[in-house]
């Protein structure tokens, strides 16, 4: 008898909490986070449809400036057009591990994540993602190679050569061969502690023609990286790569154009970067399997295809617009910084998504071994 009283007491409290949450006292995300912290699956509470299907859409990216920038460029215009939905931009970092644990435990709190096309293939093949609904998302607003089964192009970014003009006045690298040339251009380098865009750079430095990079000759690339590893700091996060330049720890680096453009702006172009032999990546929106907002997330993705919104993001963060229509809308003064502009695109090589989806995991371990 006592047990029954206890159970009904809990039910009453949950019922009250449910009413409170419906009344917007606590938003769904906070509620789910609280449950997550308590280790309770959201399903336990059989939430009312209004709560479960969500008027909220959670977009997760890699944090820092990207949270405010994506809120301004994407979330606010969407909410103005569709007042029924609230978009939250969260900077928790949608790593593959976080996505896998979220989807497999059935406690999905994210709807759409800021990743890239190769990752969309890798994760999609493991049944962790929803397929992109091209009845809502417009295929014609991206280049064909950016309309994937589980990911649709969000913006364009590049691995570029960044250098300190104080160390090398009146000079500009012509490609990765200069980066590897420690004799003529001495000083510490920085490469990413990840293979994306690093192996390609090594091969180009070793004389492989840009057209012949893929499939990547991993042994050759790792041997080339081993040549300079003693003089190289390997960065982990994008902000670390920026800090290395701000602190003048390094004179040349392989970093993202987005991060490089911010350091360039801060330093009045004392830190400069070039798209010569850059490696271009298609960023992509991916949707978690069983995402709480359901198909409403595709309305958000479709609205983020708007070229004007993409230009706003470019101006704030340096992420190149993925919608080809947007290129013309970029202000003249900023065009040299756009990784997707026709001139810059032609100087670079596009990353091969299929190669990464197939080889990334195994080669990453070999890379860590090679640089250790």
């Amino acid at each position, binding site marked *: *008898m*006592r*047990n029954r009283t206890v159970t009904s007491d809990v039910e009453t409290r949950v019922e009250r909490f449910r009413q409170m949450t419906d009344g917007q006292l606590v938003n769904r995300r906070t509620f789910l986070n609280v449950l997550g912290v308590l*280790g309770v699956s959201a399903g336990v509470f059989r939430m009312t449809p209004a709560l479960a299907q969500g008027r909220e859409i959670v977009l997760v990216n890699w944090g820092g400036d990207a949270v405010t920038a994506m809120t301004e460029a994407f979330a606010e215009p969407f909410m103005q057009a569709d007042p029924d939905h609230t978009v939250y931009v969260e900077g928790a970092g949608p*790593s*593959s*591990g*976080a996505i*896998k644990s979220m989807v497999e435990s059935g406690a999905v709190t994210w709807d759409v994540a800021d990743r890239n096309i190769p990752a969309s293939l*890798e994760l999609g093949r*493991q049944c962790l993602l929803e397929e992109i609904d091209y009845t809502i998302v417009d295929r014609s607003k991206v280049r064909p190679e950016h309309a994937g089964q589980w990911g649709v192009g969000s913006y364009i970014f590049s691995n570029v050569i960044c250098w300190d003009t104080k160390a090398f006045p009146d000079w500009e690298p012509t490609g990765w061969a200069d980066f590897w040339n420690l004799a003529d251009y001495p000083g510490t380098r920085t490469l990413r*502690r*990840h293979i994306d865009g690093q192996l390609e750079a090594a091969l180009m430095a070793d004389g492989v023609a840009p057209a012949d990079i893929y499939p990547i000759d991993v042994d050759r690339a790792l041997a080339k990286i081993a040549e300079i*590893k003693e003089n190289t*700091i*390997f*960065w*982990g996060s994008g902000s670390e790569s920026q800090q290395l330049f701000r*602190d*003048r*720890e390094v004179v040349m680096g392989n970093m993202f154009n987005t991060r490089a453009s911010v350091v360039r702006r801060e330093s009045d172009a004392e830190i400069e970067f070039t798209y010569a032999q850059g490696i271009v990546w298609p960023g992509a929106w991916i949707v978690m399997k069983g995402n709480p907002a359901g198909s409403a997330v595709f309305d958000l993705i479709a609205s983020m295809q708007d070229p004007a919104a993409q230009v706003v993001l470019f101006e704030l963060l340096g992420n190149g617009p993925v919608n080809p229509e947007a290129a013309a809308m970029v202000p003249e003064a900023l065009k040299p910084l756009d990784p997707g502009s026709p001139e810059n695109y032609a100087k670079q090589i596009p990353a091969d998504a299929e190669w990464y989806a197939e080889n*990334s*995991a*195994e080669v*990453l*371990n*070999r890379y*860590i*071994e090679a*640089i*250790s």
Partner: protein
Amino acid sequence: MSGAALPAAPALPRMDRTQLIVWAMALLPIVVLCVFYFYPLMRVLTISVTEPEFGLGNYRDIFTSSAVRRVVQTTLWICVVSSVVSLFFGYLLAYAIVHAAPSWQSWMLLAVLLSFWVSVLIRTFSWIALLQTRGLVNETLQVIGLIDEPIRFIRNPFGVILGMVHYMIPYAVLPLMANMRTIDTRYVPAARGLGASPFGAFWRVFLPLSLPGLISASILVFIFSIGFYITPALLGGGRSTMVAEYIALQVNETLAWGQGTALASSMLILVFAMLVVLGRIVKFRTMFGAA
């Protein structure tokens, strides 16, 4: 209905009631541990033998993968060096504290504990601020003309070892102090009186007596060292990948959860094995000076 099964409280003898209260108080921590610690730990162990397929393949791969071998080698040499250095400085500190005037002892201990209480992340960033190319130390050395080019203190194995030693010294000092306090302070003067040199008296009398403390401190420090994650990641310049970071890579990036959890489980087993050895040498209660 289940409530009726409980015996009436006043009928209990006094001793049993005390025990009941103790158990009731212990219940919450036990439940919390089971739910938030043992259950996830069991899942980790399970994944290591079920992903990608059932069996011990992941454990076999630990021995066949050259990347794992490389990471284990890096971990071992960094841990051995940083443990030895920590023990050396820890021994000096413990010796100094135990032999200092009583009024000084508590201040010296406080100094050790102060660094013990500061978060590892803050300490690591402090080292970066001090020792980077344009950090305080390099700038000062350049201004006073001792060096022309900045010295690379961090973002290399030296930086990792420095950060780890800084963290681990208190873990060496505390058990060593507890042990040295039990050594009769008249032994060394007695040895000197019998004609031993100062070093001889230390080497042949004090050191052997402090050996149990030294062994327990070394095991404790080594156990701590193998789990380091933040310090190598921030001070190692990306090239000193240790086991903990490699596990994180498998879990977050390559999604080789079977491999990652197998490594995590192996580390856990290694640590337990060392704790068993430690438990045979010294009682845990006495290690941190509990009476």
